[in-house]
């Protein structure tokens, strides 16, 4: 099988490490070779962050490069647009509609571009946009945005839902499992 590439992008601190852990666990449980590449340290302080998740028969590079991603999962609209060039021609973006102003916008040195979802679609990119924050709050916590996104993402795979549930159980602390299961289900069905 040709290696599949999934990028998780967002703003440092949004929970992309848990999302990548979940995907890694899932793909491993399905018998694939897996590589997950993360960035720690300074970028985690509110900067643009990206995690690469790759699976297949044998995965060499831990990175995903421009034009290679089958899926980009984004916690934030501007980040989806920023990383769009990493998408394959027929790739899919799954994004939360949340907007977080980067510091140049906060200081007034730059503007937050308008209508990014429409502009990406106009450029011929398949974009699935969902207000994951509202869904997460419906599930019980704004912090569950990452799991709502994973639920949404699960629609683009043929894995049985049970496999996703098991991966969820493997990476989420028991205390928060029920709430996260709800978040996952709401994201998947929304």
């Amino acid at each position, binding site marked *: 099988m040709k290696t599949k590439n999934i990028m998780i992008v967002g*703003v440092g601190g949004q929970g992309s490490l848990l999302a990548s852990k979940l995907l890694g666990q899932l793909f*491993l449980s399905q018998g694939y070779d*897996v590589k997950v590449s993360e960035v*720690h340290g300074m970028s*985690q302080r*509110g900067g643009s962050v990206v995690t690469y998740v790759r699976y297949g028969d044998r995965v060499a590079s831990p990175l995903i*490069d421009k034009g290679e991603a089958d899926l980009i999962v984004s916690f934030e609209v501007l980040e989806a647009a920023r990383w769009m060039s990493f*998408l394959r021609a027929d790739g899919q973006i799954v994004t939360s509609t949340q907007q977080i102003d*980067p510091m140049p916008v906060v200081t007034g040195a730059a503007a937050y571009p308008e209508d990014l979802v429409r502009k990406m679609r106009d450029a011929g990119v398949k974009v699935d946009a969902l207000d994951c924050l509202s869904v997460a709050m419906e599930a019980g916590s*704004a912090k569950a945005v990452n799991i709502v996104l994973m639920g949404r993402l699960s629609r683009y795979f043929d894995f049985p839902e049970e496999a996703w549930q098991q991966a969820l159980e493997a990476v989420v602390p028991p205390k928060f499992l029920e709430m996260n299961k709800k978040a996952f289900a709401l994201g998947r069905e929304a």
Partner: protein
Amino acid sequence: MKKLMLGNAAAARGLYEAGCAVVSSYPGTPSTEITEEAAKYDEIYCEWAPNEKVAMETAFGASLAGKRSFCGMKHVGLNVAADPLFTVSYTGVNAGMVIAVADDPGMHSSQNEQDSRHYARAAKIPMLEPADSAEALAFAKLAYDLSEAFDTPVLLKMCTRVAHSQSVVETSDRIVPPEKPYQKNIAKYVMMPGNAIRRHPAVEERTRRLAAWAETADINRVEAGEDHAVGIITSSTCYQYVKEVCGDRYPVLKLGMIWPLPAEKIRAFAASVEKVIVVEELDPFVEDQCRAMGIAVTGKALFPPEGELSQNIVAEKLGVPYAQGRALDETIPARPPVMCAGCPHRGLFYTLNRNKCTVLGDIGCYTLGAVAPLSSIEMTLCMGASISGLHGFNKALGKESENKTVCVIGDSTFMHSGMTGLANVAYNQSNSTVIILDNSITGMTGHQQNPTTGYNIKGDPAGKIDLESLCRAMGFNRVRVVDPYDLKACDRAVKEELAADEPSVIISRRPCALLKYVRHKAPLKVSADKCIGCRSCMRIGCPAISIREGKARVDFTLCVGCGVCSQLCPVSAFESTEKGV
């Protein structure tokens, strides 16, 4: 059992399986998790040392005493530990000693992108370079065997993409080798000239034996390829990019040990192909050595000496077609890292700006005080340089700078390398104002304890160094503590200490807002009726505050209710969202 493991966690697993008993490190991205993960094994004694030099000497002491030991650090940490490094090469070890050094090409979280491989050659210590998690585990174990067989410390070189990538590993059980009781051996372990002169030839002989071992070691392996027009020599994460791009097309010499190199193996490989290309990040380390052996290779003529490589860069340089991707025709504003909402450093930097201070900075989250709109810090060099730099600055300019120049240094960085700078201020008497940003944790690397926090690596109570007493003991009469959330108190402290005609220390104390035990107030909200859109609150660069339709707005998912913004608002537009308020 097959597991998905971070490269650093796999290295820690390797330490565990090899029977490592003592670990001492200082945190530094991308090396930190090796020690954090090792600390999860109860069989290994683990600690955070105040700095890398102390860590390496501690590991050496444990090796001397007969237990397998380890210290880990980032590339610039090895500069700090370079002093013991060069001489532990001479003494050799008793039980195995492994030193991990993690480079950060691309500088994801570093102040430079030095190539630590040079240290292996300079200190004459063998260096293993894993290319994924499975190798990180295997090489950590192998490093101990080499260390004991060749009587040498062994360097395990990681890089960001190996350290922070998860890949599949198979774990096995821990095997503790028989202890090697300590034996007095003055000629071997006391490095004064008479003894060191006799040890140096042993080091040279050791290198010759290691080079001979490298010739037959299976970690330096040739992978067959169909097309002999090109042969590629590579190691570490670059090997993965080469395999991604070329598959089995070209023969590859995959190096697991990059110093000393197997000259005959390289020569034979070069003879089997028409042209040799060395694919390596940063400096032409392997390339230069090949040239010195008289082997014609191409490397940095193709690949850049700065930044990380990737599969697309390798494909481009090797002439393999690759996808380009399509960017959105839109200006996307950059998103640089910022101080978190509720970060205690923010109020202090705002105060320094208001007082038009020249601020010399240090290494940590607070380096972000250099980013707009605070743009406060004007110098950052290395751990501890803020205090010594301020001393030099004030000695050079005298009164001209003394009453408006300060330095800022975090609690952990102060323990690492700030105390000696402070001793210089006290001893040689510059009228310096030193600000210790005490957020009760080592922040940037992801919350490690340090000698001022009162807890050890496991979170258990430990010795606690009292910063105020320490500064007073050094001879500072003026030592005061402020809460950086209290802008008025900060302003008063900065003004008074700059005006004082003797050196002073201000401790800006409040725990990191991300610490789990820190209880936050409810998020604030802006009363749209009251907000006049003056943007006063925007001057602190809080990521939770933005302007929407001319009015300030607080992102409730980010705000922790620190209230610094409300102290700047002329119309008291910030209100608590707490129920009943």
